[in-house]
């Protein structure tokens, strides 16, 4: 099935109870899938909201009431959701936000790009907060990581972003779903369900005392440190003897794999390091790789965003090069192969 629909099916099987969205290319198949398949499920709710802003606030409301809720959009719509994401993070409310990125900035284009890396990992919303960011690279991974997103969101009480792109969303690949949709939908314990048999509960962060807000922030920080310790995920491909490692995520990693196969056929020792959690970024693991690899080629479909995290991670160990195409232009494997090849020759790695 197509990637967008796979996300929808995975969400339903993960026990997503509410979906709120707004049409935007290239993720409409997901919104429509939820309309067709979620809306009639017992206890579930689908709303096509009046805007992406409303949708994220509806997710906030559903999460307040203790249920699994999700929204999806593409780049410009995700910009609209930033305030809501900040509020979710502040109030420690789980939620899943899917971004099938497209070309930007501005209205941009409707084709895939990776230019929302900063937006996703640095957080376009205000304040000190983080969200977990997962970057799938195939339709199967879209399904698996959507499932994982709900679990991570509930476990750490944090919004989780699934950062896909227009190409992954619309391409069709075989998918296997490991779970069945649950019969009973769980309700989180720290929720607003009416103050029956307990004191009334207030969920907020606003305070007139700076020291109170400071404590909230440090408490969030400690949680983020825990996530960093436990949830880093990445994949390596042919790095054991590599002299040049391509660092790429999402759809770019798929393209890079093709390039690497060609490079290897040509006798070039090229490998790949693929972050799957963009936050927490696999910094330590990448730095460790720099013990044996001295050259890194960061390849992304933007003007250079993940490269900053790569440079921060390496702390000067090894040399970092960049190849990128912004604006939604999809590079080909042979293009990337040529760049890697030229780099190998320039650095005397042949």
């Amino acid at each position, binding site marked *: 099935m197509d990637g967008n629909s796979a996300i929808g099916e995975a969400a339903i099987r993960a026990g997503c*109870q*509410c979906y*709120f969205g707004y049409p935007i290319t290239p993720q409409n198949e997901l919104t429509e899938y939820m309309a067709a398949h979620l809306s009639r499920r017992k206890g579930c*709710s689908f*709303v096509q*909201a*009046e*805007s992406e*802003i*409303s*949708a994220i*606030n*509806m*997710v*906030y*409301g*559903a*999460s*307040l*009431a*203790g*249920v699994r*809720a999700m929204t999806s959009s593409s780049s410009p719509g995700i910009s609209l959701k930033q*305030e*809501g994401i900040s*509020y979710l993070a502040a*109030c420690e409310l789980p939620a899943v936000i899917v971004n099938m990125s497209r070309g930007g900035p501005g209205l941009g284009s409707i084709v895939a790009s990776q230019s929302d890396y900063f937006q996703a990992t640095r957080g376009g919303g205000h304040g000190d907060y983080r969200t977990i960011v997962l970057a799938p690279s195939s339709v199967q991974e879209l399904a698996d990581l959507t499932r994982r997103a709900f679990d991570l969101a509930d476990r750490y009480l944090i919004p989780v972003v699934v950062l896909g792109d227009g190409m992954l969303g619309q391409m069709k690949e075989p998918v296997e779903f490991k779970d069945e949709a649950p019969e009973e939908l769980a309700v989180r314990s720290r929720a*607003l*369900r*009416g*103050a*029956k*048999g307990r004191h*009334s*509960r*207030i*969920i*907020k*962060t*606003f305070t007139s005392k700076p020291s109170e807000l400071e404590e909230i922030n440090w408490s969030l920080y400690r949680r983020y440190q825990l996530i960093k310790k436990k949830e880093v995920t990445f994949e390596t491909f042919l790095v054991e003897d590599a002299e040049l490692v391509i660092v790429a995520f999402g759809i770019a990693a798929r393209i890079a794999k093709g390039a690497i196969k060609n490079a290897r056929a040509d006798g070039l020792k090229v490998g790949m390091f693929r972050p799957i959690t963009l936050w927490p970024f696999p910094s330590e693991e990448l730095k460790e790789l720099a013990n044996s690899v001295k050259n890194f080629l960061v390849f992304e479909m933007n003007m250079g965003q993940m490269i900053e995290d790569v440079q921060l991670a390496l702390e000067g160990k090894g040399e970092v090069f960049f190849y990128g195409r912004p604006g939604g232009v999809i590079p080909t494997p042979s293009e990337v192969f040529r760049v890697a090849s030229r780099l190998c020759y320039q650095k005397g790695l042949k």
Partner: protein
Amino acid sequence: MKKVYARPKSLKMARFHYCPGCGHSIIHRVMCEVIDEMDLQEKVIGIPPPGCSVFAYDYFDVDMAESAHGRGAAVATGIKRAYPGAIVFTYQGDGDLAAIGTGETLHAANRGERITAIFINNAVYGMTGGQMAPTTLLDQQTTTTPYGRDARIEGYPVRMSEILALIKGAVYIERTAVNSPANIRKTKKAIRKAFKTQIDDLGFSLVEILSPCPTNWKMSPVEAWEWIDKEMTREFPLGVIKDITVKEDAD
């Protein structure tokens, strides 16, 4: 002698931070009386706005959560969709509901969301220091209309209740005030009816309450309460704007 008037149970024992003569205090108390009388304390979930009443959760002894400015109707929608058993109300000022939140409010009403919006209209932005609100009257002086509101530049006061009355999903809309004993009693009755509309699963309900803001109107409390009758009700007439709840019952 027996006590005939005391603090409602669901109003926390706290000193209001509101200004002398402010309408919020009255409205909070009257809402809590209704919550007590209708036995809703264990069912109600309230969403206060940013604004003077951001601390409403320090007073209402019910489940509450903060909302981003203007988004109350969307948050309430999310809660009600996730948990239809709750009685959900938003408590919003004139900026929150009639400026930044117009889209959310209109569409929640349009979907007939079973939520209740309590709309506090004091013709000014209180907490931020007295700027123009959508409901500021023509010629009214505020900090961003220092020469008086001029229709040519700043537009006209917005009558949200009348606008929402056109929306099919909105089944009960009333405008009241809290500037006299009679009006306070009518406000209480309207709030009770609005909650009943939600309990009876009939549709979206809204009570717009003209509320005094002595500090930003630069009047004494007594003058402010009088100004509502003298000036505000001319622009915002009191009364039932829409009530098709009986028709729904008949269906």
